[in-house]
C-alpha cells in the first residue's frame, strides 16, 4: 500500500462482501417462494424479501464503489486522502443507517414504516428500487456529499489522471441522478419517466464510467501496460457508453404513456448499447495479452477478464435480446427482464467490485497477492458463481420465452398464474443453481481465510514482473 490513508477502503470492502451474502440469502428465499408460494408467509412476504434483495445489492455495490474510490484516489492523486477520519465516520453512518433500514423492512409493515419515517411530508417510497424511507434517502445524500467532498478535495490537491477524473464524473453523476428519487409526481407517467433518470442513467450511464475507471485501474496494475494506452481505451469506451446509453433511455419509454417516437429512438440507440461492452471485453483481453509483467495476483486478472466477458453477455447480449420495440412489446415485464437483470448486474457491477477487491484486499493486508492456495480457492469461487449465474440466466430466459408464448403471443392467452404453474420446472432449476451460487460465494468468503505462503513474483517471466515497478 503506497499511502496510509488507502486503508480506509478495507472496512468498505468487508461490509460490501457481508451485505452481498445477505443479498444472496434473500434471493434464495424469493426463488423458493416462486415455487412454494407460502414459504415464510406471512413472516417475510415476497415483496419484502425482494426489497431486501435489491436494496442490499445497491447498498453493497455503493460500499464497493466508495471503497474502490478510497483505495484508488490516493494512489492516482499521489497524495494522502483529504480526511481518513471522515471516511471512517461515513462508513459507520452508512452501515448503521443501511442496517436500520433493512431491519425496518423486516420488522414493520411497510405502510407503518412509511408513516413513521416522514413519507407524509414527502412521498418517495414504494417505487421499485427506491423503496427506502425518506430519512434513509436523505442519509444517502448526506453520506454521498461527505464522500464526494473528501475524494474531490484529494483529487484537486494531487495529480489529476484520466482514471480519477472519469471515476469522479461517474460518482458525481451517481449522486446527482439520485436526486430524482425525491421527485414523485401524482401523474404516474411523469413519475415513471423521471424514475428512469435514476435507474437507467445510473446503470446504463454513470455507473459505467465507474466500472470503466475501476477496470482500467486494475488493468494498469496487473498488466503494466502504458497508462496512455489504457486511458485512451477508457475514453473510447465511455464515449460509446454515453452516446448510446443516454438516448437509449428511450427503450424504457415504449409502453408507459410516452409518445410513440420513443420506440424508434429507444430501439436504435439501445441496440447500439452492446458496442461499448464489446469494446470493454476486447480491451480487457488485449491489455492482458500485451502485459509487460506477470502480476502474482492471477485471481484479480481473472476477475477483470470475467467482467469484460460477463458484462458484454449480460448487459450487452441479453439486453439486446429484448430491447427492440416489436420484441419488447411481448417481453416487457416478463422473466426475460429478470434474466437480463441478473446477468447484467452480476457481469458488470458485481464482478467489477470483486475485481477491485481481489486486487486491493491483499495489498491492504500487506502483501502483493494472496498465497497460491487462496488464489486457487478464489478462482474456484469465480467459476462457480459465474457459471451458476449463466445457468440462472438461461433458466429464467427459458421461463420467460414460455411465459411470453403462453400469456402474450398465443391466440388463446392464459392468465398469469396459470402460466406461472406451467413454467415452475424452470423456477426449480433456477433455485438449485442459486444454491450453487451460494456455495461459490461461501468458497469466495473462505478464500480470505486461507493461509499459505504469499505468492511472490511469478517465475515465468525473465525478472520483469517485479511488483511496484511502474516501467517495463
Amino acid at each position, binding site marked *: 500500500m503506497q499511502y496510509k490513508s488507502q486503508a480506509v477502503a478495507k472496512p468498505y470492502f468487508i461490509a460490501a462482501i457481508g451485505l452481498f451474502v445477505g443479498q444472496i440469502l434473500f434471493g434464495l428465499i424469493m426463488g423458493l417462494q416462486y415455487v412454494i408460494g407460502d414459504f415464510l408467509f406471512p413472516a417475510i412476504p415476497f415483496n419484502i424479501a425482494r426489497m431486501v434483495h435489491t436494496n442490499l445489492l445497491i447498498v453493497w455495490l455503493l460500499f464497493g464503489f466508495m471503497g474502490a474510490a478510497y483505495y484508488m484516489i490516493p494512489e492516482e492523486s499521489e497524495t494522502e486522502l483529504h480526511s481518513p477520519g471522515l471516511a471512517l465516520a461515513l462508513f459507520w453512518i452508512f452501515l448503521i443507517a443501511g442496517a436500520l433500514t433493512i431491519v425496518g423492512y423486516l420488522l414493520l409493515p411497510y405502510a407503518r414504516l412509511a408513516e413513521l419515517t416522514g413519507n407524509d411530508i414527502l412521498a418517495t417510497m414504494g417505487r421499485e428500487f427506491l423503496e427506502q424511507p425518506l430519512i434513509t434517502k436523505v442519509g444517502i445524500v448526506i453520506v454521498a456529499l461527505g464522500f464526494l467532498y473528501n475524494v474531490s478535495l484529494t483529487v484537486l490537491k494531487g495529480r489529476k489522471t484520466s482514471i480519477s477524473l472519469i471515476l469522479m464524473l461517474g460518482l458525481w453523476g451517481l449522486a446527482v441522478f439520485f436526486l430524482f428519487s425525491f421527485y414523485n409526481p401524482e401523474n404516474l407517467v411523469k413519475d415513471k419517466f423521471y424514475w428512469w433518470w435514476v435507474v437507467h442513467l445510473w446503470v446504463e450511464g454513470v455507473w459505467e464510467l465507474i466500472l470503466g475507471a475501476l477496470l482500467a485501474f486494475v488493468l494498469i496494475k496487473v498488466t503494466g501496460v502504458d497508462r496512455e494506452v489504457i486511458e485512451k481505451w477508457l475514453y*473510447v469506451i465511455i*464515449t460509446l457508453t454515453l*452516446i448510446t446509453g443516454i438516448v437509449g433511455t428511450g427503450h424504457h419509454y415504449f409502453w408507459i404513456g410516452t409518445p410513440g417516437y420513443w420506440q424508434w429512438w429507444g430501439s436504435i440507440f439501445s441496440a447500439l448499447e452492446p458496442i461499448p461492452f464489446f469494446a470493454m471485453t476486447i480491451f480487457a483481453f488485449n491489455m492482458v495479452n500485451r502485459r509487460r509483467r506477470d502480476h502474482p495476483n492471477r485471481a484479480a486478472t481473472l476477475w477483470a477478464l470475467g467482467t469484460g466477458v460477463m458484462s458484454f453477455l449480460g448487459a450487452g447480449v441479453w439486453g439486446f435480446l429484448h430491447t427492440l420495440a416489436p420484441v419488447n*412489446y411481448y417481453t416487457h415485464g416478463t422473466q426475460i427482464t429478470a434474466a437480463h437483470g441478473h446477468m447484467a448486474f452480476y457481469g458488470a457491477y458485481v464482478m467489477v467490485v470483486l475485481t477491485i477487491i481481489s486486487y486491493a484486499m491483499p495489498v491492504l493486508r500487506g502483501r502483493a497477492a494472496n498465497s497460491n492456495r487462496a488464489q486457487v480457492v478464489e478462482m474456484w469461487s469465480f467459476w462457480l458463481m459465474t457459471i451458476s449465474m449463466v445457468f440462472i440466466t438461461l433458466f429464467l430466459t427459458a421461463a420467460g420465452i414460455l411465459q411470453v408464448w403462453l400469456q402474450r403471443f398465443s391466440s388463446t392467452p392464459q392468465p398469469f398464474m396459470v402460466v406461472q404453474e406451467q413454467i415452475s420446472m424452470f423456477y426449480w432449476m433456477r433455485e438449485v443453481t442459486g444454491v450453487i451460487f451460494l456455495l461459490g460465494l461461501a468458497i469466495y468468503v473462505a478464500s480470505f481465510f486461507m493461509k499459505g505462503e504469499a505468492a511472490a513474483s511469478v517465475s515465468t517471466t525473465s525478472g520483469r514482473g517485479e511488483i511496484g515497478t511502474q516501467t517495463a
Partner: protein
Amino acid sequence: MQAPRTHHAPLTAARSASLLGDFMSGTFSKSMARNVFYGGTAFFVLLFLALTFDTQGALPKRDNRDKLTPAVAAGKKIWEVNNCIGCHTLLGEGAYFAPELGNVYKRRGPDFIKAWIQNQPTKVPGRRQMPQFNLTDKQLDDLVQFLKYTSEIDTNNWPPNIEG
C-alpha cells in the same frame, strides 16, 4: 487456471493499428479521445433534453391527466405505501411474481378488485400469498380509482392482450 501466455513483442504503433485500424493507432491520441468524449456526451445530453422537452408537451394528450382526481392521487399513495410494486408489475414495471395491474380494472372490474384485496390471503397451501393490508372502504375506492386512471393511459396498445 493459468493466466494467458505472455507476448513479449514490444508495444508498437503497428501492433495497435492491427487491432482497430487507424482509429486506435498512435495517430489517435488520448487527448483526442477525451475531446470526442466531452463533445459526444454534450451533444447527446442536449438531444435527450430536447426529446424530454417535446415529451412533456405531448403528455397531456396521453397521460390521462384530466382524470387525475384527488381520489386517484390518494390511490397512488396507497399503492406506494403498501409496496404493491414489490410483487406486481404496473405498465410492465415492477416485480414479476404476481399479475400485471395496469389493465386489471379492465380485466376484473372494480368490485372484483375490492373483494379480492379484502379476502387475502387465500391460505391455499403452496400457492403464492398476498398479504392482508387492512384497507378501509375509502382506501379501497381510492385504489380502484387509481387503477382505473392507470388503465386509461395511452400505452401504445400495451399489453398485447387482456391477460397483461
